[in-house]
Every structure is written in structure tokens, then in C-alpha cells.
């Protein structure tokens, strides 16, 4: 047994007039370890169902596989991972103690630190971590067939992603809700901490830029999409004013009004795009839309939160919960047959048209959100830990919340692979390959020699018509493909083929909504980080209310992601194809940083025997991302290596060629030279910073192991004076204790500990 963090005085500090703030350890242990026949039967049934589902997905090679097996494989694996693996982490590694008050109790202020019902907080946390990421990555990764992505999403979340979220949330909670950056500085020292901060900032820029690129690709040359997504801005402004001046605090009311307006905007978009002026006015090319998003991003980030960000966040949360429940229902009811092979022809190659690079390591960076997402570490530290009611609830909220996101990723994968493979490749390959017309795209897809794929131009044209778009060729980025898949499934569930266009634009709308919220919030967070860093040299910058400083830092951040966005939009090689791996690498490097910090903390707690729980996902994330970065930096294959591509194009220019590969003009060739250089340099910076952080964490870990532990930076333990059960369903012992608390007079029950 390792050293348990300091608990002296905790038992004496408990209020004798109150019931216990925690279920007695021996009672809980006895309950957990007691296996009744019914309980055994249940887990045997879950395991068997899961095994059958995995067998159907992985080993049975029929013509088709039913989507329901994806749902069973995922849910059964999650249940087993949650019940057994996360329990091991709880019992041996984290050792939460409900006798200790959480920050929401001992720092309670009624505003930022508020004890929140566990089920509400679960939804709250889920809405904060899940966005467009899990909807996009799996779609792009479907290039390699369904099985590699499915395995990584389901196994990856159980052993890596959910572990990271759980650990970061727990450690942040023990530290009064400190952010990942602050924890890195405390645990890793100045060098490691600074490298972590700079890496985080750069990674945020890349992530925001590529999310914005997904929106641009979805809206380019789509009058309907531009109109309905554009309408979200006035709708949000209206909601903001309504909440501020007309009916303050009526959040549900305004969200419902906003939702109705949103539906009207989608339906109205179809009508507007159908008119001649509407089609002309809202038909924008990608560069124009990119500029629009950049200008919008700047304005949105300097406007007050209440006017635009907060109301859009309400809408986005509302849509998120609704869409996910609906999609799950639809997949279970419709149960589409999947014709995509388990491993596609591209699984063994590194020159796939959708994203380039070999299965290892690039599949594992292409699917980041849903399996392992470093960005979550920023959410799991900070907001959520300030709202947790009891320590034991972190397992349900942190680990369980991430399992839920993984499930979203699986459903996105199912929706995307339920469409014809020919359509999939026509939609996701760069324009330079498909040629942009239905004829050239169909010819190119058929020339790939894919099994059972024989697409006609008519099918491509008809699909575009069904979803209310002029064309679906080369709509890369994942969002449009998911929208077609979702429309395909949803119309079988509600509305029939006539509703396909509505469902398509509904899907585009919610993806754009999630992404714009992430862009806006990301810019703000990055701006504050920058202000804080500059503030170390010029103190004035630390004042958040100093307008010139805030505007300057916002402009720098928007300028940075805007430049990457424009680079992606104008890239002759197809922005998604080259940039998406960079997005995944950035996100996974952040995960490696977060896990490295957790490793150092765990070692300092003295729990060496179970260190592998953190070390294993850290090693995997580090190997995957560093290998991927090295491929991107050193690979001699131009399709994979940024510098190899740079040299190939430089040489072609030097030889006086006027077209090379997919670049048809000298200007395009120069753009490739420029872009690959920037992307290459970014990769070098990322991987260097991350290696510094990981090495710093390893040094801290080894030191702690040698010393038999280390200094912990936890807040002092405060005795708890409240009680709530740990998971979704209270156990009998929890129910009994809860009844004791409920029997207390109301004023004793709501008493806040440690307040005056």
C-alpha cells in the first residue's frame, strides 16, 4: 500500500451532530466485494453479449455487418471498463475519501464553487468535452475500414482517454480546481511548466484553426448552409439581449425560443437557397468564408460574453444533448447494414486520399477525440472540479463522461460508414484528385480498384440533389460526410426521403454551432493565456480589463489561427489531407503532456505499484505522437513528410517546371513550398516542447520513486459536512446513509462547511 495523503485531524474535525459524510469503508468494501448470483449473472451476460458483438465485428466476414453490433460492442466494453478498470484506479491509485470536503464545499461561494448534483454535473461536463471532434475524426479515419477505428475508439477510451480525464479531474479537485498549466508548473518546475504552457498555447491555435477549416469546407459553395449557420449569429444576439434585459435567468425559456428559431433558420435556408437572389448572395467561395470566420472570431472574442458566447453556448448544449439522444435512438431503431469492409485497401498503404500516412501511427492521431483527447485535460482541470460534490463522484463524472463521448464517436463512425463507399471517397478526396465534377469524380473513384465499388455520376448527382446541395464532390473535413450519413439514417427514422435535405443541413448546423463555440471559447482562453504570459514581463497585460492589451492579444491569437486556416483553405494539396494529422498530433501531444503531469503526481503520492496505469497510456500516446511527428518531419515520401514534399516542390520550381503533382500553376507550387515549410516547422516545435515536458515529468517521477514519494501540492484536507452517493444508482448502503441525511432538518442539511 502506498502512502495515503495527509489525513490528520480529518476524523476529529467531523461534526458529531451530523451523520457520517461517507459510507463506512468496511461496509462499502463488503458491498463491492459481495457477488450475489444475480450480479454474477448480469456481468456474465454483459461479457457474453460484448464478446459476441466483437466477434461479429472483427471475425465474421460476411457481405455486410449490422450497425447494432457496434452499439453492443461499445456499450458492453464500456460497462466492463467502468465497473472493473476504473474501480481499480479508484481503489489503488486515487483513493478518494468522502470524509474530505471538495472545493465546492470548502470554497463554496454560490457562484464558481457550487456543489452540483452528480447527474447534472455529468451532463454538464459531457457537454463541455464533447463537440465536433468525435464527430469528425472517426469519419476521416473510416478510409482504412471500420475495424481499426472501432478498436481504437473503444479500447483506447477505456485504457487511455477516460483514464486521463479521470486522473486530471481528481488531481485538479484535490488542488482546489487548479488548471493543467498551474499543475505542470508546480510538479515539473520552471522549464517543464513553461514548455507545457507554450505547447498548450500553440496546440490550441492549431486545433481552433483546423476546426474552423472543417466549417469552411462544409459551408463552401453551399448557400443553404451559409444562410442557416449565418442566422445563428442574430439568433444568439437576440437570446443574449433577451436574457440580459427582458427575462434574466430564464435560461430554459430562451433556449427553447432559440431552438425554434434555429429550426426556422434551417427550413428558411432551403427556401432562400431556392431563390435566385438567395443562391447568388449566399454562394460564397471558401476563401471568403474563411475571412468571414476570422473577422467573426475576432469580434466574438472581444464582445462581452453575455451577448454572443453565453447564449450560443446554451443553444449548443441544447442541440448536443438532443442530437446525441436522437442519433442513438435512430441507430438502434433503423439498424443500418454496413457494407464497408473491416480493413479497406488503404489500411496497408500510406497514400490514402482522405488522410495520408500509414495506419500506425496516423490512425491513432486521426481519431483523437473519442479515444484520447488532450484538450479534455483543459476542461477536466478548472471548471468541473469546482462543482463536484463528493470525491468519489469523480469516477462517474470523469471516467464515465469520457466513455459517453467515446460512444458519440462510435455513432458518428456508424453514420459515416452507412453510406456507399464510392460516395465516401468522392466526398472526402481533395479536389485535385476528384476533378470537381460528378463525371471526373466517379471515374476517379472507380479507378481506385476498391472492392464492390462502382459508382455512377448519376448517383453522385442524385445524392447532392437529395441533400439540397449543388455538389457533394470533395467536401472534405468529415462534417458533410457525417451529415449525409446522418440524413440517410434519420430519414428512415423520421420524415422519409423528402426530409433528407433538412436532416443534412440540421447536421451541418449543429456541427458548425459546436465548432463556432469552440473557436470563440478557444480564442478567449488562448488570449488570457497569452496575456498572462506577457504579463510576466509587462505587468499591465495581466489586467484582464485593460482593453488595448485584451484586443492586441486577441488579434495575435486570431491572426495565428487565421493564418493556418487560410493556409489550409488555399492549399493545393487539399487542406484537410495535410493538416488533419497535425490537428491529431497536437491534441495527442497535449494528452501526453497531461498524462506526464499525472505520472509525476502519482509517483509523488507514493503509489509505485500502480504507476503503470498512468505510464501505459502515456507511453502509447508518446510513441504514437512522436513517431507521427518524426514521419511528418523525416519521411522521404512526399505524401507523408512535410520537408520531403517541400524539397520535391522546390526542386520542381528550380527546374523551371510550371506544374507539379496536384499543383497546376507556379503560384500553387510556391504555396505548397511555403505551407509545407510552416507545417514542418510547427511539427518540430510541438514535438520538441512535448519531449521536454515528458522528460521533465520522467525526472520528477524517478526522483519521487527514489525518495519513496514527494511533496504533494494538494490543498489541506477539510472535513466534509455533506453527503451524496457516488454513482448513477445509489447502492443499498448509500441509500441508507442518504436517508439519515434526509431525516435532518433542512437548515442542517444545507450547512456549508468551513464558511463563516
Amino acid at each position, binding site marked *: 500500500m502506498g502512502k495515503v495523503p495527509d489525513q490528520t485531524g480529518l476524523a476529529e474535525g467531523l461534526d458529531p451532530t451530523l451523520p457520517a459524510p461517507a459510507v463506512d469503508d468496511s461496509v462499502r468494501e463488503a458491498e463491492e466485494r459481495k457477488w450475489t448470483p444475480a450480479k454474477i449473472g448480469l456481468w456474465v451476460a454483459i461479457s457474453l453479449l460484448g464478446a459476441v458483438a466483437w466477434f461479429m465485428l472483427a471475425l465474421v466476414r460476411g457481405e455486410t455487418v449490422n450497425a447494432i453490433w457496434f452499439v453492443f460492442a461499445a456499450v458492453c466494453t464500456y460497462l466492463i471498463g467502468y465497473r472493473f478498470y476504473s474501480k481499480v484506479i479508484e481503489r489503488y491509485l486515487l483513493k478518494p475519501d468522502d470524509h474530505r470536503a471538495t472545493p465546492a464545499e470548502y470554497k463554496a461561494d454560490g457562484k464558481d464553487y*457550487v456543489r452540483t448534483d452528480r447527474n447534472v454535473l455529468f451532463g454538464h461536463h459531457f457537454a463541455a468535452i464533447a463537440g465536433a471532434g468525435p464527430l469528425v475524426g472517426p469519419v476521416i479515419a473510416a478510409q482504412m475500414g471500420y475495424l481499426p477505428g472501432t478498436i481504437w475508439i473503444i479500447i483506447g477510451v477505456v485504457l487511455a482517454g477516460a483514464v486521463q480525464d479521470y486522473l486530471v479531474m481528481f488531481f485538479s479537485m484535490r488542488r482546489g480546481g487548479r488548471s493543467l498549466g498551474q499543475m505542470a508548473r508546480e510538479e515539473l518546475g520552471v522549464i517543464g511548466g513553461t514548455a507545457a504552457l507554450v505547447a498548450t498555447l500553440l496546440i490550441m491555435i492549431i486545433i481552433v484553426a483546423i476546426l474552423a477549416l472543417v466549417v469552411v469546407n462544409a459551408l463552401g459553395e453551399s448557400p443553404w448552409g451559409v444562410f442557416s449557420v449565418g442566422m445563428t449569429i442574430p439568433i444568439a444576439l437576440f437570446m443574449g439581449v433577451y436574457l440580459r434585459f427582458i427575462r434574466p435567468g430564464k435560461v430554459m425559456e430562451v433556449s427553447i425560443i432559440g431552438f425554434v428559431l434555429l429550426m426556422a433558420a434551417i427550413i428558411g435556408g432551403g427556401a432562400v437557397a431556392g431563390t435566385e437572389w438567395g443562391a447568388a448572395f449566399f454562394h460564397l467561395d471558401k476563401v471568403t468564408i474563411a475571412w468571414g470566420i476570422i473577422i467573426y472570431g475576432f469580434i466574438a472574442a472581444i464582445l462581452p460574453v453575455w451577448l454572443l458566447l453565453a447564449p450560443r453556448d446554451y443553444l449548443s448544449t441544447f442541440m448536443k444533448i438532443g442530437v446525441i439522444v436522437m442519433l442513438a435512438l435512430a441507430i438502434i431503431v433503423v439498424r443500418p447494414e454496413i457494407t464497408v469492409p473491416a480493413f479497406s485497401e488503404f489500411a496497408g498503404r500510406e497514400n490514402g486520399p482522405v488522410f495520408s500516412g500509414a495506419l500506425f501511427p496516423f490512425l491513432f492521431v486521426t481519431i483523437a477525440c473519442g479515444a484520447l483527447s488532450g484538450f479534455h485535460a483543459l476542461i477536466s482541470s478548472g471548471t468541473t472540479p469546482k462543482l463536484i460534490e463528493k470525491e468519489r463522484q469523480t469516477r462517474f463524472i470523469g471516467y464515465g463522461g469520457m466513455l459517453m463521448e467515446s460512444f458519440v464517436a462510435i455513432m458518428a463512425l456508424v453514420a459515416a460508414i452507412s453510406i456507399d463507399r464510392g460516395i465516401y471517397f468522392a466526398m472526402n478526396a481533395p479536389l485535385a484528385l476528384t476533378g470537381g465534377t460528378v463525371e471526373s469524380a466517379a471515374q476517379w473513384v472507380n479507378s481506385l480498384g476498391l472492392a464492390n465499388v462502382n459508382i455512377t455520376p448519376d448517383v453522385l448527382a442524385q445524392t447532392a440533389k437529395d441533400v439540397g446541395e449543388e455538389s457533394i464532390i470533395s467536401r472534405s473535413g468529415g462534417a458533410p460526410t457525417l451529415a449525409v450519413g446522418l440524413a440517410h439514417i434519420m430519414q428512415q427514422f423520421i420524415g422519409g426521403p423528402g426530409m433528407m435535405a433538412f436532416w443534412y443541413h440540421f447536421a451541418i448546423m449543429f456541427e458548425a454551432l459546436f465548432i463556432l463555440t469552440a473557436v470563440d471559447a478557444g480564442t478567449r482562453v488562448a488570449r488570457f493565456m497569452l496575456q498572462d504570459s506577457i504579463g510576466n514581463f509587462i505587468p499591465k497585460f495581466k489586467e484582464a480589463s485593460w482593453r488595448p492589451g485584451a484586443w492586441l492579444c486577441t488579434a495575435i491569437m486570431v491572426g495565428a489561427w487565421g493564418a493556418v486556416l487560410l493556409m489550409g483553405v488555399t492549399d493545393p494539396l487539399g487542406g484537410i489531407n495535410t493538416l488533419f494529422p497535425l490537428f491529431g498530433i497536437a491534441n495527442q501531444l497535449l494528452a501526453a503532456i497531461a498524462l506526464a503531469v499525472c505520472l509525476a503526481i502519482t509517483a509523488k503520492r507514493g503509489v509505485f505499484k500502480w504507476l503503470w496505469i498512468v505510464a501505459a497510456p502515456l507511453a502509447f500516446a508518446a510513441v504514437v505522437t512522436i513517431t507521427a511527428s518524426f514521419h511528418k518531419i523525416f519521411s522521404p515520401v512526399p505524401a507523408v513528410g512535410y520537408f520531403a514534399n517541400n524539397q520535391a516542390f522546390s526542386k520542381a520550381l528550380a527546374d523551371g517546371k510550371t506544374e507539379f503533382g496536384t499543383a497546376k500553376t507556379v503560384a500553387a507550387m510556391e504555396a505548397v513550398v511555403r505551407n509545407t515549410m510552416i507545417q514542418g516547422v510547427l511539427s518540430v516545435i510541438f514535438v520538441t516542447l512535448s519531449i521536454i515536458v515528458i522528460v521533465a515529468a520522467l525526472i520528477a517521477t524517478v526522483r519521487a520513486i527514489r525518495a519513496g514519494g514527494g511533496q504533494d501540492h494538494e490543498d489541506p484536507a477539510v472535513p466534509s459536512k455533506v453527503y451524496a452517493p457516488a454513482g448513477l444508482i445509489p447502492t443499498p448502503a448509500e441509500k441508507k446513509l442518504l436517508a439519515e441525511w434526509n431525516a435532518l432538518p433542512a437548515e442542517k442539511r444545507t450547512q456549508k462547511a468551513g464558511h463563516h
Partner: protein
Amino acid sequence: MKAVVRGFRGVATYLGSLMGADAYRKYLEHFTSSGHAGPAMTEREFWRDRMDRQDSNPQGRCC
């Protein structure tokens, strides 16, 4: 029928607290139980304060 209404109410309440609609009620609860001096903020003041504090304390949203 009654059960349906109750279920619907439950979902609405859950969604409401998920989006933070009960923030003011919780603030008041905290305020009265912790025995602060002076009057509590009104609902309008509370929401203003809440939004304005978010300006200088942004919360990330994930991808």
C-alpha cells in the same frame, strides 16, 4: 398520464439545471445558509454579475 407528466417535468428540470437555469436559486440557498451580512443580489444583478465574471474567466469548450 400523471406519470408521463411527471417524467416530462423531470426531464425539463434536469435539462434546466444542466444549462445552469437554477444558478440563482443555488446562490440564494448558499447566501442564506452561510449567514452573509447585507442583502443578497437580485436575480437581475446576479445574472449580470455571472456573465460579467465569465468575461474575465473564460471556460474552454472542447473540440
